[in-house]
C-alpha cells in the first residue's frame, strides 16, 4: 500500500518537473540568447546558458533614450488607466452590491449582458477613432476598456460580503452615503482593490492592440508596440543605436534582449502579487 503511494508520488513529481521546465525553458532560452554572441546564436549553439557571454546588445539598447521613452509611455498609460479603471469600477459596483436598490434588477443584467455580446472590432474602432475623435490620444488607450463587467461582478461580490454592521456604525457616526463609501467600505476592501488594480495594470502594461489601432505618432507608443516592431525586423540595428561593427550582433540578439527587458518588471513583481490574482479568480468563481 505505502509502496504504491510513494511510486505515485515519484511519478507525480516527475510530471511536475516536466511542466516546470516546459514553462521556464522559453524564458531561459531568451535570457541565454540575449547574452550570447552572434556567432553562437547563428550556429544554433545556445540552449539554456549564454555562449560566448556578451552584454553588448544590452549596452546598445540602453544607451539610446528610445527604450526609456517607450517605457515611460507604458508606465504613464498603466498608471493612469489603472487609476481610472479602479475608481470607476468601485463607484459602479458599490450601489450594485446593495440588494435594497430595486433598479438593480435592471442594472445588473445591463452590465452582465456585455460579457456575452459586444459591438465587435469595427464598430468599436469607428466609435473611438471617428465618432469620439480619440485617435492618437492617450484617452483612446485608457478609457474604452476602463470598466469590465467581470471586474464589476468581482467587486460587487466583495462589497456584498462586507458585514452590514460596519456601514451602520458609520451612519450612527453621522457619515453620509459618500462618506461611508470612501471612509469605511473602500478601506475594508483593500484586497479586492489590489486584485482589480493588478488585473488592469497587467492588461495595460501588456496592451499592444489598442495602441496599434489608435496611436499613429511613434512618440506616443508604449513599449509593447516598439517591441513588436523589433520582432518584425521593422527597426534597423542603426536605429536601435548600433555602430557599424555592432550591427550583426544587434541583429542576432536584439529581439531576445528587448523581450527580456520588457517582461522583466512583470516577472520581478509577479511572485509577490500572484496571490491577489488567484484570490480574485476565487471570488469571481463563487458568483461565476
Amino acid at each position: 500500500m505505502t509502496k504504491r503511494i510513494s511510486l505515485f508520488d515519484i511519478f507525480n513529481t516527475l510530471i511536475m518537473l516536466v511542466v516546470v521546465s516546459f514553462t521556464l525553458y522559453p524564458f531561459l532560452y531568451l535570457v541565454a540568447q540575449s547574452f550570447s554572441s552572434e556567432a553562437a546564436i547563428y550556429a544554433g549553439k545556445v540552449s539554456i546558458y549564454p555562449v560566448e557571454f556578451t552584454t553588448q546588445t544590452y549596452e546598445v539598447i540602453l544607451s539610446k533614450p528610445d527604450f526609456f521613452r517607450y517605457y515611460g509611455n507604458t508606465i504613464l498609460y498603466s498608471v493612469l488607466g489603472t487609476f481610472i479603471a479602479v475608481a470607476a469600477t468601485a463607484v459602479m459596483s458599490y450601489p450594485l452590491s446593495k440588494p435594497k436598490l430595486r433598479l438593480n434588477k435592471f442594472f445588473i443584467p445591463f452590465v452582465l449582458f456585455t460579457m456575452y455580446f459586444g459591438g465587435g472590432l469595427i464598430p468599436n474602432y469607428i466609435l473611438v477613432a471617428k465618432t469620439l475623435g480619440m485617435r492618437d490620444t492617450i484617452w483612446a488607450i485608457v478609457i474604452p476598456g476602463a470598466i469590465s463587467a467581470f471586474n464589476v461582478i468581482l467587486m460587487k461580490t466583495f462589497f456584498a460580503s462586507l458585514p452590514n454592521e460596519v456601514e451602520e456604525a458609520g451612519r450612527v457616526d453621522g457619515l453620509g452615503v459618500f462618506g461611508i463609501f470612501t471612509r469605511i467600505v473602500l478601506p475594508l476592501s483593500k484586497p479586492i482593490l489590489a486584485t482589480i488594480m493588478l488585473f488592469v495594470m497587467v492588461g495595460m502594461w501588456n496592451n499592444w492592440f489598442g495602441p496599434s489601432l489608435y496611436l499613429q505618432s511613434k512618440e506616443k507608443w508604449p513599449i509593447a508596440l516598439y517591441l513588436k516592431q523589433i520582432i518584425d525586423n521593422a527597426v534597423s540595428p542603426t536605429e536601435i543605436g548600433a555602430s557599424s561593427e555592432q550591427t550583426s550582433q544587434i541583429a542576432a540578439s536584439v529581439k531576445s534582449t528587448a523581450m527580456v527587458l520588457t517582461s522583466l518588471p512583470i516577472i520581478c513583481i509577479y511572485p509577490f502579487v500572484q496571490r491577489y490574482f488567484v484570490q480574485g479568480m476565487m471570488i469571481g468563481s463563487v458568483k461565476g
Partner: protein
Amino acid sequence: MATQARSKLSDTTPLWKHVRKEWKLYAFLVIPVIYFVIFKYMPMIGNVIAFRKYRGGPSILGSEWVGFTYFEMFMKDPTFWRAFFNDLTLSVSYLVVKFPLTLGFALLLNEITKMRWKKFVQTVSYLPHFISIVIVAGMVKEMVSLTGPINSLVAWLGYERIAFISLPEWFPTIYVSSGIWQSLGWGTILYLAAMTGINTELYEAAKIDGGSRLRLAMHVTIPGILPTIMVLLILDIGSILSSNFEKILLLYNPLTYETADVISTYVYRMGITGGNFSYATAVGLFEGIIGLILVTIANELSKRTTQSSLW
C-alpha cells in the same frame, strides 16, 4: 431586523419614491452607466453599418440602407468560409487538447502533499498568463526559428531543419502548443478552488472503504468539481468562433493564411487595413451572434444535464 422591515416596505412604495429616497446611491451609477451606454452599447448599435453603405465618416448614420447585401456577399466569399473553418479547427483542437490536460494537471496538483513544492509549481505555471502576447508570439518565433532550439533538436535527430512559421500545416500545432504553454497553469485555478470546497468527510469515508487515490479522484474529486467543469466547458464552447485573435495576428503571415486566417483576423484585414467597414462589420456581427447562440445552447444543455449554468 430593521433593514429587513425597511426593504419589505420599499417593495410596495412607488418607484419614484424609492429612487428619491436612495438617490445618493443611484447617483454613483450615473457616470458608469453613461460609460456603459457609450462604450459597450453604442458599438452594438454601431453594427447597423453592416446594413448600410458606410463610407468612413464620424457618423454611423446617414448612408443608404443596403439590407443584407453584405451578408450575401460574405456568404459567397470562399475566404470567409476558409476563415470560418479555420476558426473551428483551431478552437476545437485547442479545446480537445487543453481540457483534459488542464483537468489532469489540476488533479495531480491536488495530490501534492508538500505544500511548498505545490506553491512553487503553481507560481511557475501561472507565470505565462501574465506575459504580454507580443512577447509570447516573439518567443514562439524564436523557439521555432531555423536556428532555434526546436530546429536544433530536429537537426540533432538527423532531419532537415523546418521553417515552421511559414508552413501552413504547422500553424495549428504552433497555435495549440503555445496556448497550452500560456494557460495550462492558470486554467487549473478554478478547479483547485472547487476542490478545496469538497467536504473532507467524503474523502475520509472513501478511505475507510479502502479507496485508492485513483478511486478517490474518480469518485469524489471529479464529481465534486463537475459544476466547475461544466461552466468552463460552456464558456469554451461559447468562444469556439473566437480563437485567440491577437496571437494569430502576431503569428500568422500570408504564407500561412490557408490554415491560420480566422474570422476575427479576416475582419481586421478587411475593415481596418482594407477600409471595407460595412463588409467587415457584417462578418463580425455574424461571429458575435453565433457566439451568443452557442453560449445559450451550451448553457441550456448544461442546465438540463448537470444543473450547473451561467445564468
